[in-house]
């Protein structure tokens, strides 16, 4: 019989973090090592169940002897590495990432941790001027590379635009999109492999788009909602949650989360049901569960209407 491959035993390497010498397993990323040491590190585009895409640069750290700052989420630890996580360069860079995002994107629904980091670094997006007026519906989706005038600096450029509601399951509010690529990865090779969405355009015109910008119901989308499940800023939201927020009835303090098992096939996917007033208002799956890794299908994530009374 063939042996079970469990991999070679992990060697430990010595890394200096903020002046402290620590031993961490070879092959870990700096982010894993830092979290293992209890060193808090901001992330936006990183998620445990997705491959790192290095898009947001908010997790950067300073590695001695290296010209550029390193993204902690994807840089593996090396023997003898000397890492600074709170140097002036790191603080400045993280502040700029958050400030530029906050000046152009609506971060009102980003999680409290991100808001905490913005306070820590003294992020002041208002210094870029008042936000520019929102784009008309579909305008940002039609922009072509190279057709731009330099801005006059009187207002802060933004990605503000009308909300897209094209079906009864998803709401896509791209005024809140930081282009972290999580939705693209979840729709692509990391989970669903449907490839219904990708980043189109360049520079400040970059946006999440379906093929040929068709409306979502006409696209390749199969409504698994795995993009919704990974969105860190509330740009993608189940319509059930959106409707409650719009009517002022979304009350996290009155919600309970219960873990159960989906009823729609024999795979046995764990579901986290968020319930408010005896109604399911949102369905997720635990990111660290080995059956789903946080990902579901359309029935598991949205097929609860039959128990709403």
């Amino acid at each position: 019989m063939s042996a079970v491959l469990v991999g070679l035993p992990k060697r430990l390497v010595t890394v200096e973090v903020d002046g402290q010498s620590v031993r961490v397993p070879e092959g870990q990323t700096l982010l894993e090592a830092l979290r293992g040491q209890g060193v808090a590190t901001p992330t936006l585009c990183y998620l445990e169940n997705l491959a790192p895409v290095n898009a947001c640069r908010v997790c950067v750290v300073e590695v001695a002897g290296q010209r550029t700052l390193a993204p902690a989420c994807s840089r593996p630890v090396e023997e003898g590495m000397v890492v600074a996580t709170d140097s002036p360069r790191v603080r400045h860079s993280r502040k700029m990432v958050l400030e530029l995002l906050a000046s152009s994107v609506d971060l009102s629904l980003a999680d409290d941790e991100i808001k905490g980091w913005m306070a820590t670094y003294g992020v002041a997006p208002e210094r870029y001027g008042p936000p520019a007026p929102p784009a008309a519906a579909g305008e940002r989706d039609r922009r072509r590379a190279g057709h731009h005038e330099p801005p006059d600096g009187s207002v802060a450029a933004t990605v503000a635009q009308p909300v897209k509601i094209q079906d009864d399951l998803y709401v896509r509010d791209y005024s809140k999109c930081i282009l972290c690529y999580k939705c693209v990865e979840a729709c692509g090779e990391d989970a669903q492999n449907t490839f219904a969405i990708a980043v189109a355009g360049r520079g400040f015109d970059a946006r999440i788009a379906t093929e040929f910008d068709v409306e979502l119901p006409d696209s390749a989308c199969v409504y698994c909602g795995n993009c919704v499940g990974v969105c860190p800023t509330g740009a993608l939201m189940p319509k059930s949650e959106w409707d409650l927020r719009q009517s002022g009835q979304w009350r996290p303090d009155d919600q309970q989360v219960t873990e159960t098992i989906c009823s729609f096939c024999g795979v046995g996917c764990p579901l986290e049901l968020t319930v408010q007033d005896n109604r399911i208002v949102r369905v997720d799956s635990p990111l660290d569960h080995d059956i789903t890794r946080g990902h579901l299908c359309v029935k598991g994530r949205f097929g609860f209407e039959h128990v709403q009374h």
Partner: protein
Amino acid sequence: MFGAGGGTTSYEEVEQTDLVILWGSNARETHPIFFHHVLQAIHRGARLHVVDPRRTSSAAWADSWLGLEVGSDIALANAVGREILAQGLHNRTFIERATTGFEEYAAAVEPYTLKEAERQTGVPAEQIAELAHTYATADRAVLCWTLGITEHHNAVDNVRALINLALLTGHVGRFGSGLSPLRGQNNVQGGGDMGAIPNKLPGFVDVTDDVERARFETAYGTALPPERGWHLSQMFDAMEQGALRTLYVLGENPADSEADAGHARALLSGLDHLVVQDIFLTRTAELADVVLPAAADWCESEGTVTNSERRVQRLRKALDPPGQARPDLEILADVAARLGHDWRPVTAEGVWDELRSLSRMHGGMSYARLDEHRGLRWPCPDEDHPGTQFLHARLWEQPRQGPPAAFAAVEFVPPLDVVDEDYPLRLTTGRRLDSYNTGVQSGGFASPMRKRRESLLLAPEDGRRLDLADGEVVRVVSRRGHIDAPVAFDRALRPGLAFATLHTASELDTNVLTNDAWDPKSGTAEFKATAIRVEKRGAEQPGRDPLAEPTGGAFGPAPA
């Protein structure tokens, strides 16, 4: 299989294997999160072979799609086995140490040459040979199947034909090599494990085993019938003969889900007394004398379910049920009390603890441990046991532990509902990604993928041949009955093959057509193979050239 009715392998192993075969399974749509694990294997370099009459969305990911004739699975499997033997690729050591019946098997598959199998299955000989070589030479391989194998008149033989291949190559009982029947509902596996089948007590104890049965009789404090009961198909036969006059149906909608539904509805209507316990007033409940409103098991009750990798997981109550609806367990306890056996108060955990005191393979699965380990895979005999990732490692031990695994010589017998001049099309059935069974649970949410009325799907070539337009309502006739339904065209179908779901009986009453002939070994009806003809409705169009291009948008995009 080999004494334990469950898949031998785990989802993690599917990710780590070198070859996945989906045989009669469209997992991309029917088990989407299982297919995520298959996709991870593909990205690691594993091969995928899909055996299915339809070129499904699963087949779109395959290295090779074997589009066999409906119901010719045994011919294909036997030819794969014969080719493995002919090339000397079988695992002689494993066969000798761990199996019985090899000589009879080898003799039985001898007539199934590649050429003969190509004739019987419609799959090119080279593709059959390729599957045989790939499977036999893979380091690890997982063979999965679903209802495309089991909803046939010879369901058990179909499964045995696949198990034979695993025994021939030693692809069972090792990490990354196994057999995996993908279960269609969240507790098909658990229902069987709990003894909710007519021949078993919990933990696969045969009801005819006097010694084992005595353990249950002692614990329950009552004598248990020592003979096997009726399965679903036998119950309908008994209704027909008048031997079964009262029926208590829990969470099942046979008026829509039974094959030859017109006949099934007549039998249900003719009962002396019908009790239906369900979360909705289903078509079956509408026929009932008494309806007991039940709570939804997955979110309004407590309990456990067991998945396709034998993992027992907890269901937890998140919602209060509506109105008078109550958990199944409470209703059953009240019924028992009226019958003179007061078990109350009952709790799901109490019932579970009794179960695991009797079913050895569940012994170590306390609620606390199920929580701690996020479910445990049976067998898990005691509270120090970690559960079992894959079954039958014993077959590889030297010397082998336990009884050997038996080959089964099985012969190809075509579907009973014969395709002929009067019924020239083969109808098969299945599920769609966003829907589930008779639609009782999935019909309520607004899936953006449901863009048109449920239709009979035909190959575009058949649509052209029959002069049908997209969306045209036709009469679909089988030997059991007829329905009127719109047609749509699907390039996943070859000429001669039609497809229908049973999700929305009010739009497409598929089971009026299907054949209720059932496998004498499993009791499963032959849903997957119906002979039909399609008749144009309304006035004939005399003088129209049947070879002319169809009018209207016969092959255009589906109307929104």
